[in-house]
């Protein structure tokens, strides 16, 4: 019994366990807070978690501060993420021989981070849930529904399929921004001001999205990222439509419609299962809300989800309004609403009264300036730009990336893996200092794969027609940097 059989059924496993629990012999099962697939035999679950715990303990002998990140074996990768002190999330993925399933450790760890951040946004930290109810039923219940819904996005047929080397020009955990003209920016600014004053004395926060791209935010970067991620997963027009043919910078390729996820969906609300796809829809009033027609038990659970924003350190109600391609996420501080749903209804009304016209204008102007899904394509280049400090990225449209040869993608994926290690090395040696770094590789099939880090900003690129010499490739990067990155990656 072991790893190969463990992952055979699904191709992947995801587990969450708490090392503070089940310390007595025979009580090991108590450690497990979540295990996917749920029908995995208990002994197998214990064996996976046993190995993970063993390795976590073992690596601490030598590396007491830095966490175990990965166990790499011939047939599997175990990706570790310590989400909260002593609460670990481990993703086990199975490899195939044809290297079609070559991934990047950092990309898979990004999934765990994203899942945990979203979970914490809706349900608060896992440790808090465990403290609230030491039997862990509450935490297990929330984790089960939430992570199952979250994983539904990765289902390809019966198996879970995670990002591979083919996704090496994407960066999870970043926001994709829409570039707007100065005139439109002023309109958006004015809209944001109106949205902010919907509650009168207390300022409301807001996010404005066009298609799957962020137009404006008043939240700090981490909170923006979480809410943006949720919006792109479930709330934007593309996410809402069951039609998977529409595009997304973030999801295209891996996004598959979730089927009915579990039979236990009765009696839940958006507050409890925020990622349950089929519950969300746009109403006639333009507000997106969970469909409660079938819900019988509501009890004390509020209709509108309350989110916990770690960076802003505030709990807020989320109202979602949609007009054509424009999605507005309005956040109302929970502390300022005494009368719950009634108060929200009032805010909604205020918003429609004050902002409707502006919303229509902004939507029209954005649509007019919008270049479509290939708006950010640069002919001849396949690129990814990341600004980790601002949690922003921009990339070649997925449809264009697929034109790259397998060799180029594999080489770029490998290069990114190297850069990830180099980045963490720099971070350890001097966290305050930005280290510039540049690698250009001419692959055996004559493509250029390039990584360049300048003042903390990252550029990854594959050029299949980049010319034959290094100088030619360097010039291509220079041109790109000057024209599209305000010279951020230029040598001079």
């Amino acid at each position, binding site marked *: 019994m072991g790893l190969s059989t463990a992952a055979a059924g699904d191709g992947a496993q995801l587990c969450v366990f708490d090392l503070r629990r089940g310390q007595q012999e025979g009580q090991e099962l108590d450690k497990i807070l979540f295990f996917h697939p749920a029908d995995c035999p208990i002994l197998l679950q214990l064996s996976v978690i046993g190995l993970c715990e*063993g390795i976590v303990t*073992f690596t601490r002998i030598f*590396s007491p501060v830095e966490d175990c990140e990965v166990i790499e074996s011939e047939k599997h990768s175990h990706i570790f993420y310590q989400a909260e002190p002593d609460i670990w999330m481990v993703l086990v993925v199975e490899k195939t021989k044809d290297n079609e399933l070559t991934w990047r450790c950092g990309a898979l760890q990004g999934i765990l981070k994203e899942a945990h951040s979203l979970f914490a946004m809706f349900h608060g930290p896992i440790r808090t849930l465990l403290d609230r109810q030491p039997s862990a039923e509450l935490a297990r219940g929330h984790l089960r529904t939430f992570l199952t819904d979250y994983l539904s996005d990765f289902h390809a047929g019966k198996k879970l399929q995670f990002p591979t080397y083919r996704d090496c020009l994407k960066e999870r955990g970043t926001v994709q921004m829409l570039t707007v003209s100065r005139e439109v920016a002023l309109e958006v600014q004015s809209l944001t001001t109106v949205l902010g004053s919907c509650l009168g004395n207390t300022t409301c926060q807001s996010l404005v999205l066009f298609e799957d791209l962020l137009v404006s935010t008043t939240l700090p970067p981490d909170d923006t990222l979480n809410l943006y991620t949720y919006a792109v997963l479930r709330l934007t027009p593309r996410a809402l439509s069951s039609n998977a043919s529409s595009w997304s910078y973030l999801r295209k390729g891996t996004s598959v419609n979730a089927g009915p996820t579990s039979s236990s969906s009765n009696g839940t609300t958006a507050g409890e299962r925020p990622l349950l796809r089929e519950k969300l829809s746009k109403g006639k009033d333009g507000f997106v809300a969970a469909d409660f027609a079938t819900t019988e038990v509501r009890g004390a659970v509020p209709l509108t989800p309350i989110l916990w924003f770690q960076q802003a350190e505030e709990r807020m109600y989320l109202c979602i309004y949609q007009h054509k391609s424009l999605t507005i996420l309005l956040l109302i501080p929970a502390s300022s609403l005494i009368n719950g749903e009634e108060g929200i209804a009032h805010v909604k009304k205020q918003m429609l009264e004050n902002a409707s016209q502006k919303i229509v204008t902004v939507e029209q102007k954005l649509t007019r300036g919008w270049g479509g899904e290939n708006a950010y394509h640069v002919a001849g280049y396949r690129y990814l730009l990341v600004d980790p400090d601002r949690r922003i990225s921009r990339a070649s449209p997925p449809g264009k990336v697929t034109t790259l040869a397998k060799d180029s993608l594999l080489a770029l994926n490998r290069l990114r893996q190297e850069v990830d290690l180099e980045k963490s090395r720099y971070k350890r040696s001097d966290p305050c200092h930005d280290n510039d770094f540049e690698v250009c590789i*001419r*692959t*055996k099939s004559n493509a250029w794969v390039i990584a360049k880090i300048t003042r903390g900003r990252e550029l990854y690129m594959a050029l299949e027609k980049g010319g034959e010499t290094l100088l030619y490739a360097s010039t291509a990067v220079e041109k790109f940097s000057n024209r599209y990155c305000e010279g951020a990656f230029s040598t001079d």
Partner: protein
Amino acid sequence: LFAGRGGRGTGGEGREDRGTGTASGGAEGSFAAMDPPNPNPNPNPTDAQPQAAAGARLAALSLRGGRDLPPDFHTAEIHEHRTDDDDDDDDDEGYLTAASRGGSSTCAWKEAPEGLRDDDKDGDDVSPPSPSSSGYAGERGSSLDDDPEPEPDPEPAQDWPRDKKHLDEDDASSSWRKRKKHFFILSNSGKPIYSRYGDEHKLAGFSATLQAIISFVENSGDHIKFVRAGKHQIVFLVKGPIYLVCISCTEESYEGLRGQLELMYGQLLLILTKSVNRCFEKNPKFDMAPLLGGTDAVFLSLIHAFSWNPATFLHAYTCLPLAQSTRQAASAVLQDVADSGVLFALLMCDHKVISLVGAQKATLHPDDILLLANFILSSESFRTSESFSPICLPRYNPMAFLYAYVHFFDEHTYLTLLTTRSDAFYDLKDPRARIQNVLMKSNVLIEVQRSLRESALHVEDLPTDPSSQSASQPPQSSRDMSSQSLSFEMIGGPAGLWHFIYKSIYLDQYVSSEFPSCISNQKQQKRLYKAYQKLYASMHDKATGPQKTQFRRGEDYVLFCWITQDFELYAAFNPLADKTQAIKMCNRVCQWVRDLENEIFVYGESALSCTIIVGEVYEGLGFVTFSQKRYSFSFPP
């Protein structure tokens, strides 16, 4: 999870002290009365022992009479390694002591005070624990098959703890945990075989944990490759019943560390052959550690090589630069000997090959040369007399022993004759004398000494214009052009070139330049080698490589790599170097190396060949380069 953890205290049981076994054989000299665990190539394994014993006695005589080493020779040797910087990522101090330990053999009888330390209570402690006369030699080697678990020594000698191998440490000590690079060898039952730091006895529990991790994954039909936690990497290598593990925070690549474990395993095979596996088949709890008794110095020297010797990752060997005629003279006399039943004849100067001749179609893998040279150079006793020792060349035939006749002509230069015959010692004495005679008469040994002093490649000497006269100047010119090189010395070579390694793919040989003054200390040199290692791993990725070119600009260097079907070039520049200029320099280095290739490479193992350069334009970096076509001529023509 790990049932074995803590509970498997059996790992260290039955461990013998490595020094004790050497008492009889070692003191007499370095004619190793070794009997291989599986003397495959030996036609009369049963005869080997008495013969060897007789040989040992005789060799002992020759040892005392046959050598005249300068009295301070060993001290010098130790100092050479002591320049190592302990602050560096990879602490090497263990090696120093090992070298001195290995050297204690000779020191023990040459300089009595060395051997007579406080804790040397037993007289036999002064015996030389050299590999060629090590614990498993003769008396123990033969018992391998019959008695897989030797009796523990009733009176373990106390001489090892005095060494600075941190034998007082174990996995509970924080100093041990903080060591930058651990190497472990253990058996699949969890018995410790080797640890770079700490006493293997005390690491039995730790060893059992490692075994539990590996076996847990193995049992599921999978094989664990590595675990990473921050800057720490734990790399595993399973070789049948033998497990090798490296725990490192030196931030080397997985491929690099795995390659190092492969070499550790190769070194183990060189000493024992792969037939040691049979012992595990007979008795899974077989304790292998005593078989490696006294070979600590060999492993420590190899581990040290990982941070200074590019051969460990390039899989190529390097040659001592010599005038073509000098090398031809050496090759000719080796060739003569090769015809008289020697499988390989190697003339080497430290780690550099002077000449190499193989019988018929036999070829020597660069890794075998590395491991063999490491074995010989890390064992002081080889230096003290002509020696005859069973060794296995893992790449040539991992199952069988060959016999190495080793003789040092001077401090650095030594001859190795490899034969399949275990009784060839006396037959090889004459050829050796003949070779020595010719080498003396034809001034080869003097030329070797001169080359050692003078003929390194200095980036400062890189011809400024490929077409200029200086292009064909021999590398010795660095000393003549001292005034010119002085101006470069502060910044390295032209266009900020600091260093390069050029590997000829056809020849499996590399040449590297000397370090410039800006990379003068060992710490900087190690860092550069690690950067090269990473570059090598990046270029030779299994799934996507080999790539064609790579340019890498970091905080410390600009690195270039350029791989064609003929050669691989690795070059390091000042981090501010200009790309265009750097490319030009790479091109110039390639041209320079080709101009000098008759002096810096050995052509042909059993035949001399000459290289004809055919002009050809490569795309690559935009260089114009040349491909080498080799045409062989038998020598002498």
